């Protein structure tokens, strides 16, 4: 027996091969998908369409970055769509200078509002507060994340409806709208925001001490505790990070649509979780990268865009997303069982 284990020490085992496969499978899948779509629909590869895909996925992408932190700790956040809607409405109201001006349009009204900087700040503050509250419920009262954020999903949606009285707020000043519809060169602003935060998050997870702690807590929370980590603080923090991205996403989405409404972001949690999981982050925690999440996000975006171009019914798209998430988790479970036996 000892001979066999020695041999294993010397060379990477089969489990590492599976790990390698898991790391690059999404990228390979993405390329295959893009080649496939471009054969069936030449319009797919046009720069206009590709930037369009990127612009469409950037809000999902921002949320997926936050969700990666959460899922790395073996948690989950179902409340993001609701929190995003609430934050978007608050940002809109701040920009418009109050709910009474909700439909007013025109340059003359700009002076009434508080402008985009305060609006963006307000959206992020709402997101941070919502995330912090949920993190406290999870760490202090030991309620499972699934339950807390399922509750949060309802609470924030209700808060959004209550705040805006059910109606939309639309028609922002151009500087606000620029954050959703503007471009720098040929690149849409939301795409730049997404990529910038992806790089920041990658650095945090890969090079910062905090990243190590997130992986440790998700990989084995008891071992992390016995190695001297403040496990509860780390868990609480990832929901704050998630909240930040939900707030930021709410701001960017409202700017892109030039409108905020309480039903925005419905069902986003599923698309975002699918993006993260298909990008190779394990729902069991401790395994995953921001790079994978970016690929997973684009993959889901390309898939949806390609299906639209091929005129596939949106109902079928829902079915496909659902199937993908189950398949991705099935693969993850398989990979985990291989790690176990190794």
């Amino acid at each position, binding site marked *: 027996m000892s001979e066999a*284990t020695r041999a294993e020490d*010397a060379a990477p085992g089969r489990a*590492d091969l599976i790990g390698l496969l898991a790391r690059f499978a999404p990228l390979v899948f993405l390329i295959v998908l893009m080649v496939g779509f471009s054969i069936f629909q030449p319009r797919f590869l046009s720069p206009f369409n590709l930037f369009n895909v990127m612009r469409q996925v950037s809000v999902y992408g921002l949320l997926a970055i936050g969700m990666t932190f959460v899922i790395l700790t073996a948690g989950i956040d179902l409340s993001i769509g609701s929190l995003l809607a609430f934050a978007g409405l608050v940002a809109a109201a701040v920009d418009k200078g109050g709910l009474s001006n909700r439909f007013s349009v025109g340059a003359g009204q700009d002076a009434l509002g508080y402008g985009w900087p305060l609006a963006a700040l307000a959206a992020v503050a709402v997101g941070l507060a919502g995330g912090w509250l949920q993190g406290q419920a999870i760490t202090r009262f030991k309620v499972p994340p699934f339950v807390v954020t399922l509750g949060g999903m309802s609470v924030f949606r209700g808060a959004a409806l209550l705040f805006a009285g059910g109606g939309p707020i639309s028609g922002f000043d151009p500087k606000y709208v620029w954050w959703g519809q503007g471009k720098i060169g040929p690149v849409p602003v939301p795409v730049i925001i997404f990529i910038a935060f992806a790089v920041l998050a990658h650095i945090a997870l890969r090079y910062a001490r905090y990243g190590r702690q997130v*992986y440790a807590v998700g990989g084995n929370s008891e071992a992390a505790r016995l190695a001297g980590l403040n496990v509860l603080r780390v868990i609480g923090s990832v929901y704050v990070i998630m909240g930040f991205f939900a707030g930021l996403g709410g701001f960017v989405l409202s700017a892109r649509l030039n409108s905020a409404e309480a039903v925005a972001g419905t069902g986003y949690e599923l698309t975002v979780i699918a993006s993260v999981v298909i990008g190779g982050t394990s729902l069991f925690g401790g395994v995953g990268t921001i790079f994978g999440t970016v690929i997973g996000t684009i993959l889901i975006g390309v898939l949806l865009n390609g299906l639209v171009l091929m005129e596939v019914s949106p109902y079928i798209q829902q079915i496909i997303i659902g199937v993908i998430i189950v398949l991705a988790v099935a693969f993850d479970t398989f990979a985990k069982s291989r790690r176990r036996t190794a």
Partner: protein
Amino acid sequence: MTEPFLRMLGISKRFPGVQALDNVGLEVASGEVHALLGENGAGKSTLLKILSGAQQPDAGSISLDGRPTSFASPQEAQRLGVVTIYQEFTLAPNMSVAENVFIGREPGAGPFVNGRKMAADTLAITDRIGLGLKPHALVRDLSVAEQQMVEIARALSMQSRLIVMDEPTSALSAAEVEKLFRIVRDLKAHGLGIIFVTHRLEEVMQICDRYTVLRDGRKVGAGRISDTDIDGIIRLMVGRQVDALFAHRPKARTGTVALSVRGLSRRGKAQDHNATVLDNVSLEVRRGEILGVAGLVGAGRTELARAVFGADPFDSGRVLIDGEPAAISSPQDAIRHGVGLVPEDRKQQALFLALGVRFNLSMAAHERLLRGRIFIDEAAERRMVEEYRKTLNIRMASQDQTIANLSGGNQQKVVLARWLALQPKVLIVDEPTRGIDIGAKVEVHNLLFEMAQRGIAIIAISSELAEVLAISDRIVTMREGRITGEVDRESASEERLMTMMTLSGKAAWAGDAV
């Protein structure tokens, strides 16, 4: 002696890497209380699992009343009259006594349960043996002892002929033990056979008729209790040669007291107030000294380690580091005071299996690898890991190899390196060589010697007496949350340790005097 009720012959069972049972036989007659004895890992649990139908033997035969049989499942074993009562009860706390006694076998017609008959039958059983249970009481309101009575009543309701009791007295007070013994004698008078598994040898003398001793998966002795004594049984339990492969530690030069534990106590869960996890434990370890802690499973060794390290709370007592009181209520506090813990279960409590060697090794040392307060200095980290790879002889393909792919011995060296990197004052190692091969064991022992040489105070907990004897300068034994004795290495032997581990403090004293 008449034909025994149960006869097991030539039972063997192999698990990957170990021969758990090797050609073991066991005979128990009706109306007999039979003690099944052995050290940790001797094979008792495996034999019990085979007896209860939970596992199948690789070889061997079982017969009941002279008829060959086999237990394909726990249900079948129960149907044939062999019922096992485990340490962890299998009761439904929110149901009544009667419902628990007849769970899965409720009397009645069709889907309806005849509650009145069930209650009456339960009462009939408990009255017959004098268990004193109320059929309608909820199990969650009962004490541990009473819950055990429910398990016994359930066994009786199944017309069982043989009841296997796994450590039945471990959570009972002295008065409750007396009551249990009365019931056991009653069961015996009714013609039932009883297999009694316990670590408390004085109880064996009190209640058992015959005994079987296992060691390293083999049967090493059996006979009538009246023909032997506690010393004879202990000799059978430990009898192997002290492993010559374990190098003894050169005589150590020890310094000042690094860790001092005073009167540490921890009560058990609120329901079973009898169970004391730690009872007024005091000890001292000096710089450069290795203090061995011996005891059987459940003696409180791991609980002591976890309490000192702040992983579990304790109710009273003090911990002093270098003579100064240290407020330790979390592992973080312990680490700040220079205390480290290598936990007993490497995979569950120490390793991040999906992650790399480097990640695992540097986990506790981030503080000294920081650059700009936020980032880990990866170059410094790699240098550190390389240094420990060399000094500890850790065999790995690369620093980023997934740690799950290392052998147990190399994994354990990584865990030790994790604490070495912190330069601790006190290191507690709980089962430092569990599940690793003999060569790696020796390496780990040498590593502990080196650490002690450098002035670290080490507490080493091990279930292997040979290991405790080989590495310790001084040894304390524990039983039921209490320290039951202390010996220095020169005067320690496996027999002496076993005596101190299995007898209560008083009896051990008496044994010493003889």
